[in-house]
Protein backbone atom coordinates (compact mmCIF):
# COMPACT_ATOMS: atom_id res chain seq x y z
CA UNK A 1 0.00 0.00 0.00
CA UNK A 2 1.63 3.25 -1.06
CA UNK A 3 1.07 6.66 0.39
CA UNK A 4 0.93 8.08 3.87
CA UNK A 5 -1.79 6.96 6.23
CA UNK A 6 -2.60 7.04 9.92
CA UNK A 7 -4.34 4.42 12.07
CA UNK A 8 -6.03 5.28 15.34
CA UNK A 9 -3.62 8.02 16.39
CA UNK A 10 -4.12 9.42 19.85
CA UNK A 11 -2.13 12.20 21.42
CA UNK A 12 -2.57 14.43 24.43
CA UNK A 13 -0.58 17.22 26.04
CA UNK A 14 -0.91 16.21 29.67
CA UNK A 15 -4.60 15.90 30.39
CA UNK A 16 -5.67 17.74 27.26
CA UNK A 17 -6.53 15.34 24.45
CA UNK A 18 -5.58 16.80 21.11
CA UNK A 19 -6.04 13.87 18.77
CA UNK A 20 -8.29 10.93 19.46
CA UNK A 21 -8.35 7.78 17.38
CA UNK A 22 -7.48 9.72 14.30
CA UNK A 23 -7.20 7.76 11.06
CA UNK A 24 -6.93 8.72 7.44
CA UNK A 25 -6.70 6.79 4.19
CA UNK A 26 -3.43 6.87 2.23
CA UNK A 27 -2.62 10.32 0.89
CA UNK A 28 -1.73 10.19 -2.81
CA UNK A 29 1.80 10.62 -4.18
CA UNK A 30 2.66 13.42 -6.55
CA UNK A 31 -0.37 15.34 -5.32
CA UNK A 32 -1.14 18.10 -2.91
CA UNK A 33 -3.35 17.34 0.06
CA UNK A 34 -4.89 20.20 2.01
CA UNK A 35 -5.34 19.71 5.72
CA UNK A 36 -8.18 21.97 6.75
CA UNK A 37 -9.86 22.58 10.04
CA UNK A 38 -10.55 25.36 12.52
CA UNK A 39 -8.04 26.78 15.00
CA UNK A 40 -6.83 24.33 17.63
CA UNK A 41 -8.25 21.39 15.71
CA UNK A 42 -4.88 19.62 16.00
CA UNK A 43 -3.35 20.34 12.57
CA UNK A 44 0.09 21.30 13.87
CA UNK A 45 0.04 18.42 16.34
CA UNK A 46 -0.73 15.99 13.54
CA UNK A 47 2.25 17.36 11.61
CA UNK A 48 4.50 17.00 14.64
CA UNK A 49 3.44 13.38 15.02
CA UNK A 50 4.02 12.57 11.35
CA UNK A 51 7.42 14.27 11.36
CA UNK A 52 8.42 12.44 14.53
CA UNK A 53 8.89 15.53 16.72
CA UNK A 54 6.27 14.07 19.05
CA UNK A 55 5.34 10.46 19.65
CA UNK A 56 1.72 9.40 19.57
CA UNK A 57 0.45 7.71 22.72
CA UNK A 58 -1.39 5.22 20.54
CA UNK A 59 -1.69 4.35 16.88
CA UNK A 60 0.57 4.23 13.88
CA UNK A 61 1.67 6.34 10.98
CA UNK A 62 2.40 4.27 7.91
CA UNK A 63 4.40 5.33 4.86
CA UNK A 64 4.44 2.94 1.90
CA UNK A 65 3.50 0.04 4.10
CA UNK A 66 6.15 0.72 6.75
CA UNK A 67 5.37 1.85 10.25
CA UNK A 68 7.31 5.10 10.72
CA UNK A 69 7.90 4.33 14.39
CA UNK A 70 10.28 1.57 13.27
CA UNK A 71 12.46 4.01 11.37
CA UNK A 72 15.46 5.71 12.93
CA UNK A 73 15.17 9.44 13.64
CA UNK A 74 17.72 10.09 10.94
CA UNK A 75 15.88 8.03 8.31
CA UNK A 76 12.67 9.74 9.22
CA UNK A 77 14.26 13.14 8.61
CA UNK A 78 15.33 11.96 5.19
CA UNK A 79 11.82 10.73 4.43
CA UNK A 80 9.77 13.55 5.86
CA UNK A 81 10.27 17.28 5.65
CA UNK A 82 8.25 19.43 8.04
CA UNK A 83 7.98 23.20 7.75
CA UNK A 84 6.60 24.55 11.03
CA UNK A 85 4.56 27.73 11.21
CA UNK A 86 6.76 30.73 10.71
CA UNK A 87 7.77 32.85 13.63
CA UNK A 88 10.04 35.82 13.20
CA UNK A 89 13.70 34.94 13.68
CA UNK A 90 15.99 37.84 14.39
CA UNK A 91 19.36 36.37 13.69
CA UNK A 92 22.27 37.90 11.83
CA UNK A 93 21.93 35.29 9.11
CA UNK A 94 21.30 35.97 5.46
CA UNK A 95 18.65 34.24 3.38
CA UNK A 96 21.40 32.41 1.52
CA UNK A 97 22.93 31.31 4.86
CA UNK A 98 19.71 29.81 6.18
CA UNK A 99 18.77 28.00 2.98
CA UNK A 100 22.33 26.67 2.83
CA UNK A 101 21.94 25.54 6.43
CA UNK A 102 18.73 23.65 5.58
CA UNK A 103 20.53 22.07 2.63
CA UNK A 104 23.73 21.13 4.48
CA UNK A 105 22.62 20.37 7.99
CA UNK A 106 22.54 16.61 7.60
CA UNK A 107 25.41 16.40 5.16
CA UNK A 108 28.59 17.62 6.74
CA UNK A 109 30.59 20.74 7.29
CA UNK A 110 32.16 21.65 4.01
CA UNK A 111 30.29 23.71 1.45
CA UNK A 112 31.15 22.78 -2.12
CA UNK A 113 30.53 24.74 -5.31
CA UNK A 114 27.76 22.29 -6.13
CA UNK A 115 26.07 23.11 -2.80
CA UNK A 116 26.24 26.81 -3.57
CA UNK A 117 24.71 26.29 -6.99
CA UNK A 118 21.92 24.18 -5.55
CA UNK A 119 21.07 26.95 -3.10
CA UNK A 120 21.41 29.67 -5.75
CA UNK A 121 19.02 27.85 -8.08
CA UNK A 122 16.57 27.17 -5.26
CA UNK A 123 16.47 30.86 -4.35
CA UNK A 124 16.07 31.98 -7.93
CA UNK A 125 13.27 29.48 -8.52
CA UNK A 126 11.49 30.52 -5.36
CA UNK A 127 11.53 34.10 -6.60
CA UNK A 128 13.57 35.33 -3.64
CA UNK A 129 16.92 35.68 -5.39
CA UNK A 130 16.87 39.43 -4.79
CA UNK A 131 16.76 38.73 -1.03
CA UNK A 132 19.69 36.30 -0.99
CA UNK A 133 22.08 38.64 0.81
CA UNK A 134 19.46 40.23 3.09
CA UNK A 135 19.46 39.43 6.78
CA UNK A 136 16.46 37.35 7.84
CA UNK A 137 15.80 39.90 10.58
CA UNK A 138 15.03 42.46 7.89
CA UNK A 139 12.43 40.39 6.04
CA UNK A 140 8.70 40.95 6.14
CA UNK A 141 6.48 38.16 7.43
CA UNK A 142 5.60 37.09 3.92
CA UNK A 143 9.20 37.13 2.75
CA UNK A 144 10.36 34.98 5.63
CA UNK A 145 7.55 32.56 4.87
CA UNK A 146 8.83 32.24 1.31
CA UNK A 147 12.30 31.58 2.71
CA UNK A 148 10.85 28.80 4.87
CA UNK A 149 9.24 27.19 1.84
CA UNK A 150 12.57 27.38 0.03
CA UNK A 151 14.26 25.76 3.05
CA UNK A 152 11.77 22.92 2.86
CA UNK A 153 11.86 22.38 -0.89
CA UNK A 154 15.66 22.27 -1.02
CA UNK A 155 15.49 19.01 0.86
CA UNK A 156 14.59 15.91 -1.11
CA UNK A 157 12.05 13.91 0.83
CA UNK A 158 9.11 11.60 0.20
CA UNK A 159 6.69 13.61 2.30
CA UNK A 160 6.44 17.38 2.76
CA UNK A 161 4.37 18.92 5.52
CA UNK A 162 3.75 22.66 5.37
CA UNK A 163 2.07 24.30 8.32
CA UNK A 164 0.21 27.32 6.95
CA UNK A 165 2.79 28.32 4.38
CA UNK A 166 0.67 31.15 3.00
CA UNK A 167 -0.72 32.83 6.12
CA UNK A 168 1.45 35.96 5.81
CA UNK A 169 1.54 36.19 2.03
CA UNK A 170 -0.25 38.62 -0.24
CA UNK A 171 -2.70 37.27 -2.78
CA UNK A 172 -0.33 36.75 -5.66
CA UNK A 173 2.36 35.13 -3.55
CA UNK A 174 -0.20 32.80 -2.01
CA UNK A 175 -1.01 31.55 -5.46
CA UNK A 176 2.65 31.42 -6.47
CA UNK A 177 3.77 29.47 -3.44
CA UNK A 178 0.97 26.90 -3.60
CA UNK A 179 1.45 26.43 -7.33
CA UNK A 180 5.15 25.94 -6.75
CA UNK A 181 4.65 23.40 -3.99
CA UNK A 182 2.14 21.54 -6.15
CA UNK A 183 4.49 21.49 -9.12
CA UNK A 184 7.41 20.24 -7.05
CA UNK A 185 5.26 17.46 -5.56
CA UNK A 186 4.36 16.34 -9.08
CA UNK A 187 7.98 16.47 -10.24
CA UNK A 188 9.28 14.51 -7.26
CA UNK A 189 6.25 12.21 -7.01
CA UNK A 190 6.15 13.23 -3.36
CA UNK A 191 3.28 13.51 -0.92
CA UNK A 192 2.56 17.14 -0.10
CA UNK A 193 0.36 18.12 2.81
CA UNK A 194 -0.48 21.77 3.38
CA UNK A 195 -2.39 23.06 6.37
CA UNK A 196 -4.60 25.87 5.11
CA UNK A 197 -7.18 28.19 6.57
CA UNK A 198 -8.38 29.53 3.27
CA UNK A 199 -10.88 27.02 1.89
CA UNK A 200 -10.86 28.70 -1.52
CA UNK A 201 -7.13 28.12 -1.83
CA UNK A 202 -7.62 24.55 -0.67
CA UNK A 203 -10.35 23.99 -3.25
CA UNK A 204 -8.23 25.50 -6.00
CA UNK A 205 -4.87 23.86 -5.44
CA UNK A 206 -5.37 20.68 -3.48
CA UNK A 207 -6.10 17.43 -5.26
CA UNK A 208 -7.17 15.89 -2.03
CA UNK A 209 -8.56 17.29 1.22
CA UNK A 210 -8.76 16.11 4.78
CA UNK A 211 -10.93 17.89 7.27
CA UNK A 212 -9.77 17.83 10.87
CA UNK A 213 -12.12 18.76 13.68
CA UNK A 214 -11.94 18.05 17.40
CA UNK A 215 -8.98 15.74 17.00
CA UNK A 216 -10.51 13.52 14.34
CA UNK A 217 -10.68 13.33 10.59
CA UNK A 218 -14.26 14.18 9.71
CA UNK A 219 -14.02 13.99 5.95
CA UNK A 220 -11.49 12.95 3.34
CA UNK A 221 -11.63 13.07 -0.43
CA UNK A 222 -11.82 15.49 -3.33
CA UNK A 223 -12.70 19.15 -2.85
CA UNK A 224 -16.25 18.37 -4.02
CA UNK A 225 -16.67 15.62 -1.48
CA UNK A 226 -15.12 17.36 1.51
CA UNK A 227 -16.35 20.90 1.03
CA UNK A 228 -19.91 19.77 0.35
CA UNK A 229 -19.95 17.49 3.37
CA UNK A 230 -22.15 18.54 6.28
CA UNK A 231 -19.11 18.27 8.53
CA UNK A 232 -17.80 21.61 7.21
CA UNK A 233 -20.74 23.52 8.65
CA UNK A 234 -20.43 21.55 11.82
CA UNK A 235 -16.74 22.17 12.57
CA UNK A 236 -16.40 25.72 11.33
CA UNK A 237 -19.74 26.73 12.86
CA UNK A 238 -20.64 28.79 9.82
CA UNK A 239 -23.09 28.41 6.99
CA UNK A 240 -21.21 27.48 3.88
CA UNK A 241 -22.33 27.81 0.31
CA UNK A 242 -20.26 26.09 -2.35
CA UNK A 243 -20.50 27.42 -5.90
CA UNK A 244 -18.97 26.32 -9.14
CA UNK A 245 -16.37 28.90 -10.08
CA UNK A 246 -15.81 30.23 -13.58
CA UNK A 247 -12.77 27.97 -14.20
CA UNK A 248 -14.10 24.57 -13.21
CA UNK A 249 -13.10 25.21 -9.63
CA UNK A 250 -15.15 25.63 -6.51
CA UNK A 251 -15.65 28.80 -4.59
CA UNK A 252 -16.58 28.77 -0.96
CA UNK A 253 -18.77 31.41 0.63
CA UNK A 254 -19.12 31.40 4.37
CA UNK A 255 -21.75 33.21 6.42
CA UNK A 256 -21.91 33.55 10.18
CA UNK A 257 -24.71 31.30 11.31
Amino acid at each position, binding site marked *: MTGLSANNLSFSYGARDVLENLSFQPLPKGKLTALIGPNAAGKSTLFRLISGLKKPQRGQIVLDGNNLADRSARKRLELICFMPQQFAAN*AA*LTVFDVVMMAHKHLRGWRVSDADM*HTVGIALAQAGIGHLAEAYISELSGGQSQMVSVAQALIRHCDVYLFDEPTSALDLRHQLDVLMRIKTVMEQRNAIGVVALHDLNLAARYADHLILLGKGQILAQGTAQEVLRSPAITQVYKVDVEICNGPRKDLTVHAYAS
Partner: protein
Amino acid sequence: MTDQISIAAPDAAALVVAYKRRMFQRVGLVFAAAALLSSLIVLDVITGPANLSFGRTLAVILDPSIASPKEDVIIWQLRLPIALMAVAVGAMLGVAGAEMQTILNNPLADPFTLGLSSAASFGAALAIVLGWSVVPGVGGLFVTVNAFLLAMITSGFLFLFTRLRGVTPEVMILVGIAMLFTFNALLAFLQYGASELQLAQLIFWQLGSLARASWAKVGVCFAVLLIVLPYFMSRSWALTALRMGEEKAAALGVNVSLLRMSVLAGVSLLSAVAVSFVGAVAFVGLVGPHIARMIVGEDQRGFLPLSALCGALIMSGTSIASKAITPGIVYPIGMITSLIGIPFFILLILGQRKRHWQ
Protein backbone atom coordinates in the same frame (compact mmCIF):
# COMPACT_ATOMS: atom_id res chain seq x y z
CA MET B 1 6.49 30.21 -12.40
CA THR B 2 7.54 33.18 -14.40
CA ASP B 3 6.67 36.34 -12.67
CA GLN B 4 8.19 39.75 -12.39
CA ILE B 5 10.19 38.92 -9.31
CA SER B 6 12.05 35.96 -10.71
CA ILE B 7 12.75 37.83 -13.92
CA ALA B 8 14.09 40.82 -11.99
CA ALA B 9 16.06 38.63 -9.61
CA PRO B 10 19.71 38.04 -10.29
CA ASP B 11 20.11 34.54 -11.64
CA ALA B 12 21.50 31.68 -9.60
CA ALA B 13 25.08 32.16 -10.78
CA ALA B 14 25.11 35.76 -9.60
CA LEU B 15 23.78 34.68 -6.21
CA VAL B 16 26.57 32.15 -5.89
CA VAL B 17 29.14 34.79 -6.78
CA ALA B 18 27.77 37.11 -4.09
CA TYR B 19 27.79 34.34 -1.49
CA LYS B 20 31.30 33.28 -2.42
CA ARG B 21 32.50 36.84 -2.10
CA ARG B 22 31.00 37.02 1.37
CA MET B 23 32.54 33.67 2.36
CA PHE B 24 35.87 34.93 1.11
CA GLN B 25 35.49 38.10 3.17
CA ARG B 26 34.59 36.03 6.22
CA VAL B 27 37.67 33.87 5.93
CA GLY B 28 39.78 36.95 5.24
CA LEU B 29 38.43 38.72 8.33
CA VAL B 30 39.14 35.70 10.52
CA PHE B 31 42.71 35.59 9.22
CA ALA B 32 43.10 39.35 9.61
CA ALA B 33 41.94 39.09 13.22
CA ALA B 34 44.40 36.25 13.82
CA ALA B 35 47.24 38.32 12.32
CA LEU B 36 46.29 41.33 14.43
CA LEU B 37 46.21 39.11 17.50
CA SER B 38 49.71 37.81 16.78
CA SER B 39 51.12 41.32 16.67
CA LEU B 40 49.21 42.27 19.83
CA ILE B 41 50.83 39.34 21.62
CA VAL B 42 54.28 40.65 20.70
CA LEU B 43 53.23 44.19 21.62
CA ASP B 44 51.97 42.88 24.96
CA VAL B 45 55.35 41.28 25.61
CA ILE B 46 57.35 44.43 24.83
CA THR B 47 55.06 46.72 26.85
CA GLY B 48 56.63 47.51 30.21
CA PRO B 49 60.06 48.42 31.49
CA ALA B 50 63.10 46.89 29.72
CA ASN B 51 62.77 48.61 26.32
CA LEU B 52 62.49 45.52 24.17
CA SER B 53 62.23 46.04 20.43
CA PHE B 54 59.40 44.49 18.40
CA GLY B 55 61.72 42.71 15.96
CA ARG B 56 64.05 41.29 18.57
CA THR B 57 61.12 40.16 20.74
CA LEU B 58 59.46 38.44 17.81
CA ALA B 59 62.76 36.72 16.99
CA VAL B 60 63.17 35.51 20.57
CA ILE B 61 59.59 34.23 20.66
CA LEU B 62 60.06 32.33 17.41
CA ASP B 63 63.49 31.00 18.37
CA PRO B 64 64.05 30.80 22.14
CA SER B 65 67.64 29.57 21.69
CA ILE B 66 68.89 33.04 20.66
CA ALA B 67 67.65 34.70 23.87
CA SER B 68 70.11 36.26 26.27
CA PRO B 69 69.57 35.18 29.91
CA LYS B 70 67.85 38.51 30.63
CA GLU B 71 65.60 38.20 27.58
CA ASP B 72 64.80 34.62 28.51
CA VAL B 73 63.58 35.71 31.94
CA ILE B 74 61.63 38.76 30.79
CA ILE B 75 60.13 37.36 27.62
CA TRP B 76 59.79 33.65 28.23
CA GLN B 77 59.32 33.42 31.96
CA LEU B 78 57.54 36.65 32.87
CA ARG B 79 55.65 38.21 30.01
CA LEU B 80 54.78 35.55 27.45
CA PRO B 81 52.72 33.47 29.90
CA ILE B 82 50.74 36.60 30.75
CA ALA B 83 50.29 37.55 27.10
CA LEU B 84 49.13 34.05 26.17
CA MET B 85 46.93 33.82 29.24
CA ALA B 86 45.18 36.99 28.06
CA VAL B 87 44.65 35.41 24.65
CA ALA B 88 43.41 32.10 26.06
CA VAL B 89 41.07 33.64 28.62
CA GLY B 90 39.74 36.14 26.07
CA ALA B 91 39.06 33.36 23.58
CA MET B 92 37.38 31.21 26.23
CA LEU B 93 35.13 34.00 27.38
CA GLY B 94 34.37 35.02 23.79
CA VAL B 95 33.33 31.50 22.83
CA ALA B 96 31.43 30.96 26.08
CA GLY B 97 29.48 34.19 25.59
CA ALA B 98 28.77 33.43 21.92
CA GLU B 99 27.33 30.01 22.61
CA MET B 100 25.42 31.06 25.73
CA GLN B 101 23.77 33.74 23.62
CA THR B 102 23.02 31.16 20.95
CA ILE B 103 21.56 28.38 23.09
CA LEU B 104 19.64 30.72 25.37
CA ASN B 105 18.53 32.89 22.47
CA ASN B 106 19.39 36.00 24.46
CA PRO B 107 21.82 38.79 23.63
CA LEU B 108 22.63 39.42 27.29
CA ALA B 109 23.77 35.94 28.18
CA ASP B 110 27.41 35.65 29.23
CA PRO B 111 29.31 34.08 32.15
CA PHE B 112 28.65 37.23 34.15
CA THR B 113 24.90 37.54 33.67
CA LEU B 114 24.34 33.84 34.31
CA GLY B 115 25.93 34.17 37.72
CA LEU B 116 29.00 32.02 37.00
CA SER B 117 31.40 34.90 37.71
CA SER B 118 29.65 35.75 40.98
CA ALA B 119 29.76 32.12 41.99
CA ALA B 120 33.49 32.05 41.29
CA SER B 121 33.98 35.23 43.32
CA PHE B 122 32.07 33.65 46.20
CA GLY B 123 34.28 30.56 45.95
CA ALA B 124 37.37 32.75 46.05
CA ALA B 125 35.95 34.63 49.04
CA LEU B 126 35.39 31.37 50.91
CA ALA B 127 39.08 30.68 50.46
CA ILE B 128 40.38 34.16 51.18
CA VAL B 129 38.13 35.11 54.10
CA LEU B 130 37.35 31.82 55.79
CA GLY B 131 40.33 29.86 54.61
CA TRP B 132 38.00 27.12 53.44
CA SER B 133 39.00 24.82 50.68
CA VAL B 134 36.18 22.99 48.92
CA VAL B 135 38.68 20.30 47.96
CA PRO B 136 41.28 19.65 50.67
CA GLY B 137 44.93 19.25 49.81
CA VAL B 138 45.23 21.52 46.79
CA GLY B 139 47.74 23.75 48.54
CA GLY B 140 48.25 27.28 47.30
CA LEU B 141 45.80 26.79 44.45
CA PHE B 142 42.80 26.65 46.75
CA VAL B 143 41.46 30.08 45.76
CA THR B 144 41.45 29.05 42.11
CA VAL B 145 40.03 25.61 42.83
CA ASN B 146 37.25 27.03 45.00
CA ALA B 147 36.34 29.57 42.32
CA PHE B 148 36.30 26.88 39.65
CA LEU B 149 34.17 24.49 41.66
CA LEU B 150 31.61 27.08 42.66
CA ALA B 151 31.26 28.16 39.03
CA MET B 152 30.85 24.54 37.94
CA ILE B 153 28.31 23.84 40.68
CA THR B 154 26.31 26.84 39.56
CA SER B 155 26.30 25.74 35.95
CA GLY B 156 25.43 22.25 37.13
CA PHE B 157 22.41 23.79 38.73
CA LEU B 158 21.52 25.61 35.50
CA PHE B 159 22.11 22.32 33.71
CA LEU B 160 19.66 20.46 35.95
CA PHE B 161 17.21 23.22 35.31
CA THR B 162 17.26 22.60 31.58
CA ARG B 163 16.13 19.06 32.28
CA LEU B 164 12.93 20.22 33.92
CA ARG B 165 9.92 20.11 31.67
CA GLY B 166 8.75 23.34 30.19
CA VAL B 167 11.81 25.37 31.14
CA THR B 168 12.37 27.91 28.39
CA PRO B 169 15.60 29.80 27.70
CA GLU B 170 13.95 32.90 29.19
CA VAL B 171 13.42 31.08 32.47
CA MET B 172 17.04 29.97 32.46
CA ILE B 173 18.23 33.55 32.07
CA LEU B 174 16.07 34.55 35.02
CA VAL B 175 17.48 31.69 37.08
CA GLY B 176 20.97 32.87 36.12
CA ILE B 177 20.17 36.38 37.29
CA ALA B 178 18.77 34.97 40.52
CA MET B 179 22.08 33.14 40.99
CA LEU B 180 23.97 36.35 40.35
CA PHE B 181 22.12 38.15 43.14
CA THR B 182 22.28 35.20 45.51
CA PHE B 183 26.04 34.91 45.25
CA ASN B 184 26.50 38.66 45.44
CA ALA B 185 24.52 38.65 48.69
CA LEU B 186 26.54 35.73 50.08
CA LEU B 187 29.69 37.50 49.03
CA ALA B 188 28.58 40.63 50.87
CA PHE B 189 28.15 38.54 54.03
CA LEU B 190 31.71 37.33 53.78
CA GLN B 191 33.02 40.80 53.00
CA TYR B 192 31.22 42.19 56.04
CA GLY B 193 33.03 39.80 58.33
CA ALA B 194 36.40 40.03 56.61
CA SER B 195 39.50 41.75 57.95
CA GLU B 196 40.95 44.69 56.06
CA LEU B 197 43.71 42.59 54.61
CA GLN B 198 41.31 39.90 53.46
CA LEU B 199 39.02 42.52 51.99
CA ALA B 200 41.86 44.00 49.99
CA GLN B 201 42.85 40.55 48.76
CA LEU B 202 39.28 39.73 47.81
CA ILE B 203 38.71 42.95 45.93
CA PHE B 204 41.98 42.49 44.13
CA TRP B 205 40.88 38.99 43.12
CA GLN B 206 37.51 40.21 41.89
CA LEU B 207 39.02 42.99 39.82
CA GLY B 208 40.82 40.35 37.83
CA SER B 209 44.50 40.02 37.19
CA LEU B 210 46.70 38.33 34.65
CA ALA B 211 49.66 38.48 37.03
CA ARG B 212 48.74 35.04 38.34
CA ALA B 213 49.47 33.51 34.94
CA SER B 214 51.88 30.61 34.60
CA TRP B 215 52.79 28.23 31.82
CA ALA B 216 50.83 25.48 33.57
CA LYS B 217 47.66 27.60 33.65
CA VAL B 218 48.16 28.63 30.04
CA GLY B 219 48.43 24.95 29.19
CA VAL B 220 45.20 24.14 31.02
CA CYS B 221 43.38 26.95 29.20
CA PHE B 222 44.52 25.86 25.76
CA ALA B 223 43.76 22.23 26.56
CA VAL B 224 40.18 23.15 27.49
CA LEU B 225 39.87 25.23 24.32
CA LEU B 226 41.19 22.32 22.28
CA ILE B 227 38.55 20.03 23.73
CA VAL B 228 35.56 22.35 23.53
CA LEU B 229 36.13 24.37 20.34
CA PRO B 230 36.27 21.44 17.89
CA TYR B 231 33.08 20.05 19.39
CA PHE B 232 31.32 23.40 18.97
CA MET B 233 32.63 23.71 15.42
CA SER B 234 31.32 20.24 14.59
CA ARG B 235 27.87 21.37 15.72
CA SER B 236 27.98 24.50 13.55
CA TRP B 237 24.93 23.81 11.42
CA ALA B 238 22.84 22.75 14.39
CA LEU B 239 23.79 25.86 16.36
CA THR B 240 23.07 28.05 13.34
CA ALA B 241 19.72 26.29 12.95
CA LEU B 242 18.87 26.98 16.57
CA ARG B 243 18.91 30.70 15.83
CA MET B 244 15.97 30.15 13.46
CA GLY B 245 13.82 29.10 16.39
CA GLU B 246 13.48 25.96 18.41
CA GLU B 247 10.76 24.23 16.44
CA LYS B 248 12.36 24.99 13.12
CA ALA B 249 15.67 23.61 14.33
CA ALA B 250 13.88 20.52 15.62
CA ALA B 251 12.13 20.10 12.26
CA LEU B 252 15.53 20.22 10.59
CA GLY B 253 16.61 17.33 12.79
CA VAL B 254 18.39 19.11 15.63
CA ASN B 255 17.94 17.43 19.00
CA VAL B 256 17.46 20.78 20.70
CA SER B 257 17.57 19.74 24.35
CA LEU B 258 20.60 17.50 23.85
CA LEU B 259 22.41 20.24 21.94
CA ARG B 260 21.57 22.79 24.60
CA MET B 261 22.84 20.55 27.40
CA SER B 262 26.08 19.55 25.73
CA VAL B 263 26.86 23.12 24.72
CA LEU B 264 26.01 24.35 28.21
CA ALA B 265 28.48 21.84 29.63
CA GLY B 266 31.14 23.16 27.26
CA VAL B 267 30.57 26.83 28.00
CA SER B 268 30.49 26.12 31.74
CA LEU B 269 33.90 24.53 31.59
CA LEU B 270 35.28 27.38 29.50
CA SER B 271 33.98 30.13 31.72
CA ALA B 272 34.73 28.40 35.02
CA VAL B 273 38.37 27.84 34.05
CA ALA B 274 38.75 31.37 32.69
CA VAL B 275 37.16 33.10 35.66
CA SER B 276 38.90 30.99 38.29
CA PHE B 277 42.32 31.77 36.76
CA VAL B 278 42.04 35.50 36.19
CA GLY B 279 39.08 36.63 38.30
CA ALA B 280 35.74 38.08 37.38
CA VAL B 281 36.45 39.80 34.07
CA ALA B 282 33.33 41.51 32.83
CA PHE B 283 32.16 42.32 29.33
CA VAL B 284 34.56 40.23 27.26
CA GLY B 285 32.05 37.40 27.01
CA LEU B 286 29.34 39.87 26.10
CA VAL B 287 31.10 42.28 23.78
CA GLY B 288 33.36 39.83 21.92
CA PRO B 289 30.50 37.86 20.36
CA HIS B 290 28.53 41.01 19.58
CA ILE B 291 31.42 42.45 17.63
CA ALA B 292 31.87 39.13 15.81
CA ARG B 293 28.15 39.02 15.01
CA MET B 294 28.20 42.50 13.55
CA ILE B 295 31.19 41.69 11.40
CA VAL B 296 30.45 38.20 10.01
CA GLY B 297 26.89 37.42 11.07
CA GLU B 298 25.81 34.30 12.86
CA ASP B 299 26.74 31.50 10.51
CA GLN B 300 28.63 29.62 13.20
CA ARG B 301 31.43 28.63 10.86
CA GLY B 302 32.55 32.26 10.89
CA PHE B 303 30.88 33.47 14.08
CA LEU B 304 32.53 30.98 16.42
CA PRO B 305 36.19 31.51 15.42
CA LEU B 306 35.71 35.27 15.22
CA SER B 307 34.04 35.37 18.66
CA ALA B 308 37.09 33.61 20.06
CA LEU B 309 39.42 36.00 18.25
CA CYS B 310 37.46 39.11 19.29
CA GLY B 311 37.52 37.99 22.92
CA ALA B 312 41.25 37.32 22.64
CA LEU B 313 41.87 40.70 20.98
CA ILE B 314 39.95 42.54 23.70
CA MET B 315 41.84 40.78 26.49
CA SER B 316 45.18 41.20 24.78
CA GLY B 317 44.48 44.91 24.24
CA THR B 318 43.42 45.17 27.87
CA SER B 319 46.62 43.52 29.01
CA ILE B 320 48.63 46.08 27.05
CA ALA B 321 46.51 48.96 28.34
CA SER B 322 46.82 47.76 31.94
CA LYS B 323 50.58 48.25 31.71
CA ALA B 324 50.68 51.30 29.44
CA ILE B 325 48.30 53.68 31.23
CA THR B 326 50.73 54.46 34.04
CA PRO B 327 54.23 53.12 33.45
CA GLY B 328 55.31 51.05 36.42
CA ILE B 329 51.78 50.19 37.53
CA VAL B 330 49.80 47.21 36.30
CA TYR B 331 46.09 47.93 36.68
CA PRO B 332 43.65 45.07 37.27
CA ILE B 333 42.22 43.99 33.92
CA GLY B 334 38.62 43.72 35.11
CA MET B 335 38.55 47.48 35.64
CA ILE B 336 39.81 48.17 32.17
CA THR B 337 37.57 45.74 30.30
CA SER B 338 34.52 47.39 31.83
CA LEU B 339 35.81 50.93 31.29
CA ILE B 340 36.72 50.36 27.66
CA GLY B 341 34.01 47.82 27.01
CA ILE B 342 30.94 49.77 28.02
CA PRO B 343 31.33 52.91 25.87
CA PHE B 344 32.53 50.84 22.95
CA PHE B 345 29.59 48.53 23.35
CA ILE B 346 27.08 51.36 23.50
CA LEU B 347 28.60 52.91 20.38
CA LEU B 348 28.31 49.61 18.53
CA ILE B 349 24.71 49.12 19.58
CA LEU B 350 23.74 52.64 18.59
CA GLY B 351 25.60 52.35 15.31
CA GLN B 352 23.81 49.17 14.49
CA ARG B 353 20.35 50.53 15.37
CA LYS B 354 17.52 48.11 15.00
CA ARG B 355 18.49 44.85 13.62
CA HIS B 356 18.99 41.57 15.29
CA TRP B 357 17.61 40.77 18.71
CA GLN B 358 14.48 42.82 18.52
